[in-house]
């Protein structure tokens, strides 16, 4: 590559001017981002504040500053469904962790084969993978339900978890395929020349290199499973098996908005683990190959 004349040429700037300029530029960035953040999170802040208002005032006195603070929504919400809300948090955690493991395991294997190995039907398989996410859930759910029902798996977590272990989340398969394809071929070719078979290559070369994709898969699987409503609603009939999203939906009646306070309070409670998880996981997005370097 050749050097071109450019507006900002760092190599030629005197050091002092550079830091000053960078600092003011950062300040500007912070300012812009700050305003943007406010816009983005306003609705959530409103929800958080509302959770501390008496239920019937949420919609009638919608201001951001609550007149009287109360923890009633949390107390009532926590016990609203005959058992402590922690039961649903644990259920959701179980399903989410199971799904993460399933997706990481099955999608990584599948993606590697589809992205790197040469075999007939490869293109067809890729197309089939994509095609399987093109049909909307609502026409698939009944045949699927009949299938799991005949296996006697209704009211267990199997219908939620088995598909994850069988690489049916094409989104993640394809995500990983795309990431693997950004990894230079030279790397695994070198491993092949060293005598590594496809399994060793996958395990020692590709898997460590696709870490950002694995982290992304982990984050999304966790959040999407946590928020998923329709599938757990249909398969989990017994209240003790409910996940958080199904439990939350039981708090408001679609025919009236009674229980909004509890809904907000418990939404907030159920948002915390997800937020904590994201805050933790996103760090791993930073410490990818960029810091360890290409080996």
């Amino acid at each position, binding site marked *: *590559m*050749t*050097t*071109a004349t450019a*507006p900002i*040429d*760092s190599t030629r700037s005197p050091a002092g001017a550079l830091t000053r300029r960078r600092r003011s530029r950062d300040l500007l960035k*912070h300012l812009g981002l700050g305003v943007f*953040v406010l816009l*983005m*999170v306003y609705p*959530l802040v409103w929800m958080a504040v509302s959770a501390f208002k008496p239920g019937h005032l949420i919609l009638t006195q919608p201001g951001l500053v609550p007149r009287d603070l109360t923890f009633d929504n949390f107390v009532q919400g926590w016990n609203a469904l005959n058992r402590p809300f922690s039961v649903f948090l644990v259920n959701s955690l179980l399903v989410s962790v199971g799904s993460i493991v399933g997706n990481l395991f*099955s999608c990584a*294997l*599948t993606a590697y084969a589809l*992205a790197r*190995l*040469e*075999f007939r039907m*490869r293109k067809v398989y890729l197309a089939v993978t994509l095609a*399987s*996410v*093109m*049909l*909307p*859930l*609502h*026409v*698939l759910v*009944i*045949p*699927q339900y009949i299938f799991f029902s005949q296996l006697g798996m209704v009211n267990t977590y199997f219908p939620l978890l088995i598909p994850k*272990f*069988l*690489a049916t989340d094409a*989104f993640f398969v*394809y995500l990983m395929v795309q*990431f693997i394809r*950004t*990894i*230079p*071929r*030279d790397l695994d*070719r070198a491993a*092949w020349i060293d005598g590594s078979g*496809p399994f060793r290559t996958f395990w020692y070369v590709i898997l460590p290199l696709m870490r*950002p994709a694995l982290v992304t898969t982990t984050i999304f699987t966790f959040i999407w499973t946590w928020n998923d409503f329709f599938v757990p609603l249909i398969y989990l009939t017994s209240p003790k098996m409910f996940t958080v999203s199904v439990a*939350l939906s039981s708090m408001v009646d*679609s025919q009236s*908005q009674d229980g*909004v306070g509890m809904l*907000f309070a418990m*939404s907030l409670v159920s948002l915390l683990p997800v937020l904590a998880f994201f*805050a933790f996981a*996103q*760090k791993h*997005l930073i410490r*990818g190959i960029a810091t360890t*370097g*290409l080996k």
Partner: protein
Amino acid sequence: MATTRSRRPRASKLHSQGLAAHIFLIPWQLGLLLVTAIPLFASLYLAFTDYNILSSPEFNGLENFRRMFSDEYFWASVRVTLVYVFVSIPLQLAFALLLALILDRGLRGLAFYRSAFYLPSLLGTSVAIAILWRQIFGDDGLINQALGLFGVHGESWLQNPATALSTLIVLNVWTFGSPMVIFLAGLRQIPEELYEAARVDGATVVRQFTHITVPLLTPIIFFNLILQTIGAFQTFTQAHVVSGGTGGPANSTLFYTLYIYQQGFANFDMGYASALAWVLMIAIAVVTAIHFILSKYWVFYGDD
């Protein structure tokens, strides 16, 4: 291009690779057989039947497909969905990419911003969204209160057929967190050495962006484009939650999948719903195929 071009693997390795591939693909093949294929073919068959969920399906040929042509709700839902896809996806991806680039390097408090921008996506499509959205776009919502300061009396944006869809587009753009995270992950995948080498060569920031970042990110941009488009075609929950499942006012938020749902689950017309679903699938497949054809001109893979 940053990567070197080289020969394809030798043919002699093809056989063992094929065997390995099929071992790697065991879970996927099982899933395809057990979880995906059965419902897929079931729905294809049902598309040619009259099936009310409660009694056995009866074959009725192309009747379901014929019915679509004269079904005004079908056409309304096609219109709504197309507008939504073509407006909200470019907006959402542009936001996501821009923010990912800003957040990718060189700024304090990155972790905070990343989490803040992702917060809306965390909330997902919870029931609470309906109430939040009314708080902003409703008759007495934030926007109208702001307009009120200027003496403008606004009506509910959610109840006006001309603006209701825009509020859902805003909702989609608001949750740009997911594609942003994928972009961030993609940016992390770009080897730092390439930038170092470029800097040694004296390449400017702009040049590094256009010559390293963009080309190496194209597979990820392509991924986001494809999957977000497929997702947008299937938008259901947002519309269902915000309109209370009606697709109103005056069908202005009657998304295609919402209509499928209404036909299948409210009207018990699963035959028609399946036919609608297959038409959607074919439409998505065509759009995706076009994306793939065009991708040859702008997507660069490290494995070419």
